[in-house]
């Protein structure tokens, strides 16, 4: 599979459904894309790290220090933005 094909396959829609599915299996609710996962008490720091690892593994990316900010994981939309930005940066490199 070339980088371009991978890029096409991983649409924002795909990321959304992946993450929603992961959250559904883990916390048995499917949050809305703009729902604040932390203020709603859905996520602990242990689970936040699970999310980081899940996203890294699913999209073959590395989420380094600078991006380990709660705001990047606060909503599903924020996570979609993070994955797309890191993938774009890695393709540039």
């Amino acid at each position, binding site marked *: 599979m070339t980088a371009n094909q991978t890029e096409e396959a991983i649409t924002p829609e795909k990321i959304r459904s992946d993450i929603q599915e*992961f959250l559904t299996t*883990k*916390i*048995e*609710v499917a949050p809305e894309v703009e729902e604040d996962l932390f203020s709603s008490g*859905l*996520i*602990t*720091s*242990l*689970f*936040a*790290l*699970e*999310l*980081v*690892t*899940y996203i*890294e*593994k699913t999209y073959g990316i590395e989420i*380094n*220090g*600078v*991006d*380990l*900010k*709660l705001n990047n994981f606060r909503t599903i939309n924020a996570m979609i933005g993070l994955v797309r930005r890191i993938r774009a940066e890695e393709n540039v490199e």
Partner: protein
Amino acid sequence: MTPEEFAQETTLIGELVADQADAWDEAESLPAELLRKLGQRGLLCAQVPVAFGGLGISSELNGELTAVSGSWCSSLRSVMTSSGMAAWAIQRLGNRQQREDYLPQLANGQIGAVGFSERLAGSDLAAMQTQIRPDGEFVIVDGLKCWMTAAAYADLLIIIGRYDDGAAAVAVPANAPGVALERIPRPLGCRAAGHANVILRSVRLPAASVLGYCGGQSLPMLVTAILAYGRISVAWGCVGILRTCLNAVTQHARSRTQFGKPLAEHQLVARHIAQVYAAEQVATRACEHASRCWDSRSPEMAAAAVLAKYVSSANAAQGSASAMQVLASAASRDTSAVARAFRDAKLMEIIEGTHEICELMLARHALTP
């Protein structure tokens, strides 16, 4: 690394430690030569990837290395935990440049240590007061870190502190101006692990010393990410403690006779033996599970690391207490192997997240909707 190469390395560690762990414990110091030799072979942070000059072994294999070393000397194992955790912090939080700058040094003889705790911020790390303040092309670090394991031997200190409205980890050379160490005398356990309080007074470093080049991360995420390594490592160290206890208990129960028969044939002693055996087996399984989660990059890893640390440290504390009871006066000299295990194990229920903090994390994990 082939199984033969791995066996060579553990044999080497065994030869270097030989029968000296009690003397090191008494002297509250590990020989510089020992740490230099093991450090240069990459054994103090053995998971550093080959691309960065490390041995690049899996968490599971490093676990075995940690358990074997911990079965001989928990102080040496503590240095492995600290240096490995410092390397992991750089790998996890640093950018490519920082990995290239720091990891090959740690994999080739330098020793790392990580500072979380402060006088007012033990279990409650949110109360942390150490400041990492950006100042143009520099950052200024101010704070006091307590009970930093291996700090007395470390070349590189990874210091966690506040940064803007979040947190950051910064790599501080131990010889940077403004860094002062205060050794902690007579710790209960791991007496030769080089515990120290580290005082940082207006320590001025290039801004590029902040891991990831930019702070402001979430403190709980930062801490959980770094401690995952330390927790698995401490847990494997506890497996080592339990192996030593099991070995001592079975030998003693076979060889010592009371009331006309070996201790092993007394049922109340046999129960202790069963308890130590079960403690060692269960701890090993919990550690294997955590390491396999780590190696397969399973999202379950962080929780599995807490679970392994929780189970293994409690089992080591209970198992070493049983071993003390069976060996009785034969282990009652403060520096014998089982007495060390007893003291070291208690400390393992305190560091890297106390037993109670692990319980809170596990309960919350279990309760997550």
